[in-house]
């Protein structure tokens, strides 16, 4: 379903950051901001937070336990082999595989989580208000209901180059 949005375009990070401040002071909700590179003020401005690092830690914990359990099962329980009388449960030498495989599990898990949470996956169509946002423009988008004279004035004062209405 397509909705109408107010789309403002800025040509520098400085103007965008000032506009975010002004809009926030007037308690207007920003729907989304599109930038050519990560701008921390924009991320805070939209109010996005992420528990990504916790997810990665969780993957690591689960991965390490699973791998160690697998090594123990295969070398001690399922088919213990005698290598010159050395103990089957060779914990120190299991650690190396555990570390490397845990890293692999964290990586694959994180990539998957990223794809799901950021909605970035092969075959996805890019829906964006302004194509120039991946090149040199900073685009701030508002819900159509939040449109007001005051908002437009604020944006213009802070150097918005264009203010458009778009359906996305």
């Amino acid at each position, binding site marked *: 379903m397509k909705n109408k949005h107010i789309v403002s375009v800025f040509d520098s990070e400085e103007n965008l950051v000032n506009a975010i401040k002004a809009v926030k002071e007037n308690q207007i909700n920003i729907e*989304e*901001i*599109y*930038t*050519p*590179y*990560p*701008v921390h003020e*924009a*991320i805070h401005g*939209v109010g*996005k*937070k*992420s528990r*990504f*690092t916790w997810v*990665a830690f969780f993957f*690591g914990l689960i991965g390490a336990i699973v791998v160690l359990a697998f*090594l123990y099962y*295969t*070398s001690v329980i*399922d*088919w213990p082999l005698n*290598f010159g009388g*050395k103990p089957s449960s*060779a914990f120190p*030498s*299991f650690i*190396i*595989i555990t*570390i*490397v*495989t845990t*890293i*692999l599990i*964290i*990586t*694959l898990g*994180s*990539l998957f989580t*990223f*794809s799901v*949470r*950021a*909605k*970035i*996956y*092969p*075959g*996805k*169509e*890019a*829906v*964006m208000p302004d*194509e*120039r*946002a*991946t*090149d*040199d423009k900073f685009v701030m988008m508002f819900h159509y209901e939040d449109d007001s004279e005051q908002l437009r004035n604020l944006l213009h004062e802070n150097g918005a180059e264009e203010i458009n209405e778009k359906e996305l």
Partner: protein
Amino acid sequence: MYKEAIRGPLILGNKSFRQISADIIAPIDKRPPLWWKAAFGLSLLMLAYGAWAIYRTIFLGIGTWGVNNTVGWGWAIINFVWWIGIGHAGTAFSIFLLVLRQKWRTSINRAAEAMTVFAVMAAALFPALHMGRIWNFFFIFPYPNTRGPLWVNFNSPLFWDFVAITAYLLISASFWYYGMVPDFATIRDRAKNKIKKAVYGVLAFGWTGSTREWLRYENLSYVLGGIAAVLVVSVHSIVATDFAVSVIPGWHTTIFPPYFVVGAIFSGFAMVMTLMVIIRKIYKFQDYVTDKHLDAIARILIFISLIMGTSYATEVFVAWYSNNEYEIFTFFHNRITGEYKFMFWAMIVCNALIPQLFWSKKIRRNLWAMFTISVIINIGMWYERFNIVVTSLANDYLPSSWTNYAPTVEEIGVFVGTIGLFIAGILLFFKYIPMMAISELKSVRDAGSKFKKRIEEMKIKSEDEL
């Protein structure tokens, strides 16, 4: 440490964002120049020679190689270690410097990561071929099989190596690819050609540049950076344990893991320098790969070269100090003197002595000198691996089995083939992928400008005082 606030801007020429996108994407939009086609043709010839050698190796067996019962590891292992070493720089470069928040990495990390991916692919070929029966390759995967199930030996460094390299290839390739996603979106949105728009549109995974994406993207790169930094150290340490757990004189030492890791980063950084000089010179990227970038790499190379020199000296010292006759024989009669002395001294000269020329600022400013020295370092690193692998094996405990080792055309062919693979990969990278991380370049464009402003303010003040 490279502090932008002290050393000035990372990108010269007061570029606009639009200009940065245009500059980096330009080689993708243009038709490939003549030198590119010639080099690509040459790399395909090398690949064909490699394919012939691999065909012979697989269908006739390892007997086509020069390795024998005494020297069981020859060029294959030398080249494997050499390529893995080169493959270390990408990750060392982008990840160590990402974690340390060194912004000068932005112009270089993409090329370094591309290099890593191709070098690790080249490296992985050698152990696979060295198995002899490559069609039984899948035996190395620990899966419930009909042979027992008989599991692989999880205590063997050779198996650790397999795990580490597979993980390293997967992780560095995905790190590289995810780094490119925003840039593919830039190409997609700038493209006028419909086919190009569609192709890069698929590659870009629907990237839009929203805060939703950037937030997770930054988190992802720091998480991956943090954990893959461990991998940089562990992978080559594991390669070193392949040697160090054996009881061969010259291999059985505790210095091996750190010595291998440093050596790997050394050859990798040298290869990064080779590549950056080529990119800067041919694609005229001097505004992005500035003298200061190359200078920073050269300084790192001096430092690592000193560590390498110290390691070589430590090995020889410990061989003497241990008073172990086999160690003393290997180092003093088999390496420093004896039939393989050329390899030993080539290693010392190329790795420990020649890079010291970088102490001179003139040499750190001269592209040709930097290019030559970086190539010499990689030749030296190859000799180092030859020195380690062959000299320890050729004259072992039993004089009756002493023998010489020389590669056959098949062994040379496999090596030439991997060089062809590497060059072809790098050339395709030049043509189809943005050579520098465009979005990251944009974010560091103004990194030195605060400093510039302050200088200007100070100038105005001092003029007022006058």
